[in-house]
């Protein structure tokens, strides 16, 4: 590859170039706009597959990095890097974007050029977030990504779109501005924004944070990420944003944007503030479990199909957070796996709900019923996706939840038990809603004439279904690649503790040192 040295830069800015190219097309040249966007995003997906080759299995650190100076004072560098965790999140993003272009082929009617420009710019921001290794650069992409998403919701959304868009931006911004203060504080203490350098300083004991400072900094980062995830009770923006967003917006939002929060926790919260993470873990775990159960219960009583899927996200992402804050390699792998699986399954659910909406222009479950008669193929795909989301073995949802529960059980059987009820509840609300929409008599006359999946829709769904199945049975392909980085995150946490134990000047409550005992003690409380 000629561009192998700059693969990461290409991955970030290729969609931006595509967006620029779109601006040259005439606004009413609909077909070509869609085609060009599809080609650009599909090419981006192919580029991202090169990452698989660039990141060898079992590699430590960041196998592919890019570095150049950008701003001299404060020293902000253009530092990108990819490891096994960010690798798949990038691929997930580039995979979902062309799918979104296809899914909006008939659903979006006005201001088509702007729509596709926004979609590509969103991809720029999201890929940038996953690849940044400079705290500042990370924050920059984190903020930039907001604008195209807000526009996607606010212009092409449904009735209450403006309210939802503004709520989305304000929630995220409130969190991220605190994170900025935290980032600057760290810079002030270390003189650099570079994540690996700061980690190095923490390990060498050059940077020692007092207990209180560490907790405050942890919270500054954690709250920003928790809003994005969203962790109960910060989730209230999510149902609004999802219900009002157009299908493509929902897919990207659920599929990728939520993962930015959990990714942030793995990449920043745990390695930078290990002690604070450990102290906060019991509380975070409780919030995560409350989110799992609360999200499932609220989803169960939703009359609105899209809101149901949105609340199911709250529940599923609770699992991810729980998996991360159990501090076990296996649960962390499960968390990463669940991030990917949720991206595919929930993305697919939103696609399917969007397809129903394209036909009937409503999300109310009571408006449907007996749909498997007029549209058997769509019903079959829907069932497949519902089962994967409910965590049926052999499909993608199962692997992540299983690993998370396994890891969590090692820490506390109570956590695992409570979380496991979420698995049962998810089967309840998903299957029950499926039954109400697709089985029984056709109660509405309009529903009799509904068309089954078109060729385009079949292609979209078949692609997603293949990936779902593959992730279900071929999970080692994925886990092998992020097992080492997950282990590295945990080791980093433990090393910091070791160091603090070694340094006599630092008051250290945990004299036994190892993370194992400390988490167990926390869990036992």
């Amino acid at each position: 590859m000629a561009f192998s040295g700059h693969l990461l830069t290409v991955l970030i800015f290729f969609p931006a170039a595509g967006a620029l190219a779109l601006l040259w097309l005439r606004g009413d040249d609909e077909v070509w706009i869609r085609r060009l966007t599809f080609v650009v995003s599909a090419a981006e997906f192919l580029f991202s597959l090169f990452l698989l080759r660039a990141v060898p299995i079992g590699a430590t650190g960041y196998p592919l990095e890019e570095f150049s100076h950008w701003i001299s004072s404060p020293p902000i560098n253009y530092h990108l890097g990819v490891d096994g965790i960010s690798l798949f999140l990038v691929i997930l993003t580039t995979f979902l974007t062309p799918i979104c272009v296809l899914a909006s082929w008939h659903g979006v009617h006005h201001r088509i050029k702007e729509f596709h420009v926004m979609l590509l710019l969103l991809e720029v921001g999201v890929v940038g977030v996953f690849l940044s290794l400079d705290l500042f650069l990370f924050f920059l992409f984190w903020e930039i990504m907001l604008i195209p998403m807000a526009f996607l919701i606010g212009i092409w959304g449904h009735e209450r779109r403006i309210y939802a868009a503004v709520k989305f931006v304000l929630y995220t911004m409130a969190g991220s501005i605190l994170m900025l203060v935290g980032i600057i504080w760290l810079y002030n203490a270390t003189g650099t924004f570079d994540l690996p350098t700061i980690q190095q300083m923490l390990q060498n004991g050059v940077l020692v944070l007092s207990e209180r400072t560490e907790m405050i900094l942890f919270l500054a980062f954690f709250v920003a990420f928790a809003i994005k995830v969203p962790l109960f009770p910060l989730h209230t923006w999510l149902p609004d944003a999802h219900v009002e967003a157009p299908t493509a917006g929902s897919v990207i939002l659920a599929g990728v944007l939520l993962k930015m929060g959990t990714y942030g926790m793995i990449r920043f919260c745990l390695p930078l503030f290990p002690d604070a993470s450990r102290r906060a873990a019991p509380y975070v775990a409780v919030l995560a479990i409350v989110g799992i159960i609360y999200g499932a219960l609220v989803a169960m009583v939703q009359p609105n199909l899209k809101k149901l899927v949105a609340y199911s996200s709250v529940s599923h992402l609770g699992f991810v957070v729980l998996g991360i804050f159990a501090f076990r390699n296996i649960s962390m792998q499960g968390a990463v796996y669940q991030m990917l699986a949720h991206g595919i399954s929930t993305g697919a659910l939103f696609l399917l709900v969007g397809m129903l909406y394209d036909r009937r222009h409503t999300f109310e479950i009571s408006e449907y019923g007996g749909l498997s008669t007029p549209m058997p193929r769509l019903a079959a795909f829907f069932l497949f996706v519902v089962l994967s989301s409910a965590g049926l073995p052999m499909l993608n949802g199962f692997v992540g939840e299983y690993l998370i529960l396994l890891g969590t059980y090692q820490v506390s059987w109570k956590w695992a038990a409570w979380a496991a009820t979420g698995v049962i509840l998810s089967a309840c609300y998903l299957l029950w809603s499926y039954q109400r929409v697709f089985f029984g008599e056709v109660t509405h006359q309009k529903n009799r004439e509904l068309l089954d999946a078109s060729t385009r829709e079949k292609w979209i769904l078949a692609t997603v279904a293949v990936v779902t199945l593959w992730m279900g049975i071929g999970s080692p392909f994925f886990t092998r690649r992020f097992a080492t980085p997950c282990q590295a995150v945990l080791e980093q946490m433990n090393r910091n503790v070791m160091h603090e134990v070694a340094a006599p000047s630092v008051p250290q409550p945990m004299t036994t040192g190892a993370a194992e005992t400390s988490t167990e003690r926390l869990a036992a409380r």
Partner: protein
Amino acid sequence: MTSLNQEMLHNLLLVLPEMVWCGSAVVLMLLQPFVKGRQALTFIALLGAAAGTMVTFFGIPGSGFAGLIQFDTFSLFFHWLLGLVSFLVILSSDSYLERENLDGAEFYALILFATAGMGVLASTQELLTAFIGLEMSSISSYILAGYRRDSIKSSESAMKYFLLGSFATAFFLYGIALVYGVTGSTNLASLADADPAGNLLRLGLTLILVGLGFKVAAAPFQIWTPDVYEGAPTPVTALFSAGPKAATFALLLRIFSTVHAATEYWFWAFWVLAVLTMFAGNLGALVQGNVKRMLAYSSIAHAGYTLVAFAAVTFVRSDPEAVAPAYAAVLFYLASYALVSVGAFTVVSEIGGRGERYLTFEDYAGLGTRQPFAAAALSLFLLSLLGLPITAGFFGKLYIFTAAIKSKLIWLAILMAVNSVIGAYYYLRLIVVMYMREYKGTVPAEASRGLSPTAAMVVTVAALITLYLGLLPNHVLSIVLSPHLLLSAR
């Protein structure tokens, strides 16, 4: 004799920009009876503004007029900024004056006089000279605010500005008198030697702070701002929010970089001022239905952010290592805000149409489809005011944050963060209206023609600079971080 002449020449070189600005203003007034057509006058005014900025290159760092005027990187920076602002304002006024059927010559002359006054403020090293600069810019501003004689709002604006402004000037003057009473001199350098704990000196400086606080619209002295900004012709509002504000902040910085000790007192003064100003501006802006008023309140809020950096300056005053980034933060912020604000007000001026009728949020509905360029540019400016990355405003805010956190002003930084989020709401509201609301047809076709060529030029320049400062702030940073920024403070 020759040495005297040489000294005179050296002194004159120090005020050459002001002389050029005043000179071109006088030429404009003289030419008015002979020149038909506004365009020629605009051209001369632009030439004058640009020439005044260019001649700063002849300046030699040092002080002149027996220490009254100081020429250093600091004043150089502000001369460039003020010259650029007045250049852009003059350019954007061209179409405005035509639309409103107003005379050009006096208008341009007043802008240039005001610019000269601000230039004096930026380079003065003595309080009475500062007073002259302040009056020069203020009196021109009063007239400019009421330039639309047939509009009641404009007259109200001028009257309010004049009455309250005179009041503030009196405070300033009293302050000078007290300072003179204590130190026996009005030179800033003498402040450094004065007993900083003396109550009389403290009172004098407080009065000076009140007078200047009025000029920069710091709460609780900000009440006049929305009315004056709303009533004044919009290009003049652009000038108010950018020029005098920057120049007065420059003077404040000079004064309070000289006051040696008693920083505790001044630190808290600035702390309180900053918090009050941020909240007054942002909370006020939240409920506005008029875009011009909203931007006026936002301008108060941004004065508050600048004052946060002042609190940092007074806090770290004793440590020259730490103070440099705080100075740089103020300068960078003022530059970024000034240009963004000129750009935003220029768009508002053009959308307003004849008689400035279309200023409400409803009039901006659907602007994204009616006038894509104007809407995109205004969005960029709003995002910069909001402080989003890759715009100038982001780095401005970042440097202030950094300065505040370096000085361990965590609470002030957090309050500033809270305010940024409040600010995000009303800036986004306008963007939402422009792009997400349907156009209801309240604006007649004549007002939706798009920007006039001159205004489009101003907006383009402002937008480019906004992006330039947001992407490559290194160049400007190297200027504002210069070790010889303030010759006297070292």
